[in-house]
């Protein structure tokens, strides 16, 4: 094993990890806001990839440019899903947690079925995007441009999200609603509006991730399943509810995945991710950055 192999592994792992973080951060945001785990998160990603694919196929819009459009489309989807499904799931008087899990799990199945019905089961991909297949080579280390771009977007998104939560009125409303939904009603904040916007924002972030993924990944109705578990582990590793945790969790997952494959057969590389998750929560039961 040469130094070059190790550095290349770490570089690939870091880039992939930032993307995992971007995929997961929407999940963390929604969870932080209202303690809901969205089991349709992978399907949100799938839909964003299809949006990007169709914008490319029918209007020749490059994934780079359609990223904001995919984010906007997913924003609407997220808000609608909250208003139509999650809002009612949260009203449940008994075992709210399970009701939410299964309401969103049912939604995930419906979304897969709809994708197969409308988009067919065919495997798609965006063949010639501006960045697709291009790569930057620095001293023998290859950095694929789509992932590089994804990493930049991820960093920008985390920065923006941080400022948004801490510096804007809406961000403060989100924080306040999260801390005490009852009290904010008294000061005239409509809880449902804040939650709907929170869901929209969370979905928009995964929309952004989907657009970037579309430039180098294949697309089909079940594609979300490949990422869903990694996204949950990422969020839990970072600490549920912590946006920064998702960012850090993503990087850790990416690096662990890449380094595991150096020592174990690659078919076991997710074992490394899972083992690190267990190790972290056994030591810190609330993840790396979760609030106690």
């Amino acid at each position, binding site marked *: 094993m040469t130094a070059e*192999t190790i550095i290349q592994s770490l570089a*690939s792992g870091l880039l992939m990890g930032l993307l995992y973080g971007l995929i997961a951060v929407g999940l963390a945001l929604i969870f932080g806001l209202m303690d809901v785990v969205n089991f349709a998160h992978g399907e949100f990603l799938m839909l964003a990839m299809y949006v990007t694919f169709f914008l490319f196929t029918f209007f020749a819009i490059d994934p780079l440019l359609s990223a904001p459009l995919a984010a906007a489309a997913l924003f609407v989807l997220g808000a609608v899903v909250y208003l139509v499904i999650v809002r009612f799931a949260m009203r449940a008087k008994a075992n709210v947690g399970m009701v939410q899990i299964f309401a969103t799990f049912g939604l995930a199945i419906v979304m897969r079925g709809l994708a197969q019905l409308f988009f067919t089961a065919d495997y798609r991909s965006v063949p010639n995007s501006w960045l697709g297949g291009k790569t930057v080579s620095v001293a023998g280390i290859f950095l694929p441009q789509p992932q590089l771009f994804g990493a930049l977007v991820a960093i920008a998104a985390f920065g923006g999200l941080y400022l948004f939560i801490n510096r804007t009125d809406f961000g403060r409303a989100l924080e306040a609603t999260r801390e005490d939904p009852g009290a904010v009603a008294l000061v005239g904040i409509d809880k449902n509006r804040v939650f709907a916007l929170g869901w929209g924002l969370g979905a928009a972030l995964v929309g952004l991730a989907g657009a970037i993924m579309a430039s180098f990944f294949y697309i089909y109705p079940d594609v979300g399943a490949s990422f869903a578990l990694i996204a949950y582990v990422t969020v839990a590793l970072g600490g549920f509810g912590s946006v920064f945790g998702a960012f850090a969790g993503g990087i850790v997952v990416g690096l662990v995945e890449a380094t595991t494959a150096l020592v174990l057969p690659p078919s076991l590389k997710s074992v490394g991710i899972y083992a690190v998750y267990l190790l972290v929560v056994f030591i810190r039961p609330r993840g790396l950055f979760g609030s106690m």
Partner: protein
Amino acid sequence: MTITRRDVLLGAAATAALMPLAARAQTSEVVIGATYPLSGAGAQVGVDAQRAFETAVDIINNDQDFDLPLAKGLGLPGLGGAKIRLVYADTQGDPQKGRAEAERLITQEKVCAILGSYQSAVAVTISQICERYQTPFLSADNSSPSLHRRGLKYYFRASPHDEMFSAGMFDFLDAMKKKGAKAETLALFHEDTIFGTDSANAQTKLATERGYKIVADIKYRANSPSLSAEVQQLKAANADVLLPSSYTTDGILLVKTMAELGYKPNAIVAQAAGFSEKALYDAVGDKLEGAITRGSFSLDLAAKRPMVGKINDLFKAKSGKDLNDNTSRQFMAMIIMADAINRAKSTDGEKIRDALAATEMSGEQTIMPWKRVKFDEMGQNNDADPVLLQYVGGKFVTIFPSQAAVADAIWPMK
């Protein structure tokens, strides 16, 4: 004893009640089941398979001028012109569901034979159920070599299995080596499923027997979110020939990741699967100029056998795709099964089984590059030779074996 009106009515009623049975005996239609994944990860293959079967049934049921068994004339002449009706069942790629669906098709839909099933794991349970109900099962596209070695009486497979496919690939490599091409070291890249494992086992065995050196044997998790680490190991090993056994999804990601990590293999010789799917070449065809895959089917055959082109057109009208490795085998499975039922002159499982066992179809009567269709005592057709195809200028060209080849292999790939 006088026959009253009531007796007559009763008699009529009894006759009417028995009618369906009598009608079934005469058979105006023959029901054949097809078990495929129609939702979930393998759904695309299952949906394409439906189009392939429908193409074959159209040809059998209607009068077509092809040199295929049963193409001419309407329906099955051996059963008084009975038409074939297909019933599909969704296995979702799960052995238990495949088993339940096969049993439902046999007992409820009264199918007289079953075709299937893409995933080899599902074929295991379907063929068990078929054995129990004495209903013939014809593997259209399952390639696990263990399937026909289980001593099942009702199991048949007309197409090659992974060992035959891999032997074809190594015959080709031997021939290339003789011509002076550099093909000493191999890198295996295979998924962690039955397909990947069988393929890698067969290739490892052949490599040892024929003196090739395996410098990397990379087993990866199917549908991984990233293959960078795997590709890096391939790149470090830098073998003369890369032998991937991957489905479409991982195939696309593999080729994209290779390009991104600056790995350009000397030659790719793929175990079909994803590498014979249009979707893969739509996605990454530009990076695969000169890639080689084994196949059961080649459109080049149309030059020698014009009906191949015409049947391809019929299929394309239904599916929007050319016949490929899977759909051609599915098409042939339906033809072979219908031919056996026709010769059995019955929908009785045992008679169809005997007719299948007696099948003797020349290669010219198929759309495949096979010598013939004739099953050995285990139900395997050993005269189905694979071909090797090279992707050149946006389409596949047959390069091996020499009697089927229309061009020489370009080696190393571009």
